[in-house]
């Protein structure tokens, strides 16, 4: 009896069983929870819940979590990535806007008026010409001059 028991303990089957029920579910689950974005409470929740699951049921339970993580975790991670990308764009937009605003403040009055009316108020060239007592063609030329002035001012600040 004792010999049989010792044989069973040292046999490969016993070690495979210990490995399959003890080590594999926990390790797989730790990999699975990585599908959730950093800071998602589900990461810690699932690892803590594994301790409540009976050992024989753990491989099946972990397989179910793979299903959840594929749909819920990957979707959450994608949503977080989209928001981060959006925030990066907004911050770079804000930085560009500050640069343009400071450059415009250094320009002569006529250029500031052209910039404000065309880019902020949304006037087209014919209306811009009427406000500035110019023809539409002259307003277009003035707009080009203003844009060049802004570009030169920004270049001088960035370099």
């Amino acid at each position, binding site marked *: 009896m004792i010999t049989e028991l010792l044989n069973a303990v040292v046999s490969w089957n016993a070690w495979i069983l210990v490995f399959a029920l003890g080590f594999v579910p926990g390790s797989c689950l730790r990999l699975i929870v990585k599908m959730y974005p950093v800071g998602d*409470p*589900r990461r810690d929740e699932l690892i*803590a*819940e594994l*301790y409540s699951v009976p050992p024989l049921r753990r491989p099946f339970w972990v397989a179910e979590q793979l299903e959840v993580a594929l749909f819920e975790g990957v979707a959450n991670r994608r949503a977080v990535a989209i928001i981060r990308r959006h925030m990066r764009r907004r911050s770079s937009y804000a930085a560009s806007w500050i640069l343009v605003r400071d450059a415009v403040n250094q320009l002569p009055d006529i250029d500031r008026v052209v910039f404000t009316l065309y880019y902020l108020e949304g006037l087209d060239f014919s209306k811009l010409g009427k406000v500035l007592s110019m023809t539409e063609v002259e307003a277009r030329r003035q707009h080009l001059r203003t844009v060049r002035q802004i570009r030169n001012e920004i270049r001088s600040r960035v370099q």
Partner: protein
Amino acid sequence: MVFLEDPTSRHWGYELSRRSGVRSGVLYPMLTRMLEEGWLADGWEDPTTIERKRPPRRYYEITDEGLQALGAVLRDARNDARFAGLHWRLA
């Protein structure tokens, strides 16, 4: 149903899955939606109260809003012919 049977207790993910008979693959997304609706509140176990060596678990509690909402869902289900064959455990 589990939340309505025991509305004052804290419930854990695996325990909810076992008692309700809902697979955890379905249960966790449902819990997330109920949290977003304000039907449930969640929190973490106090680590000092844990006897075994394990990390603190996340618990779920039903809110007053959730009690009303789930009660209404249950009443509707009772009157729905599709669920007539179900045995209702709640009074």
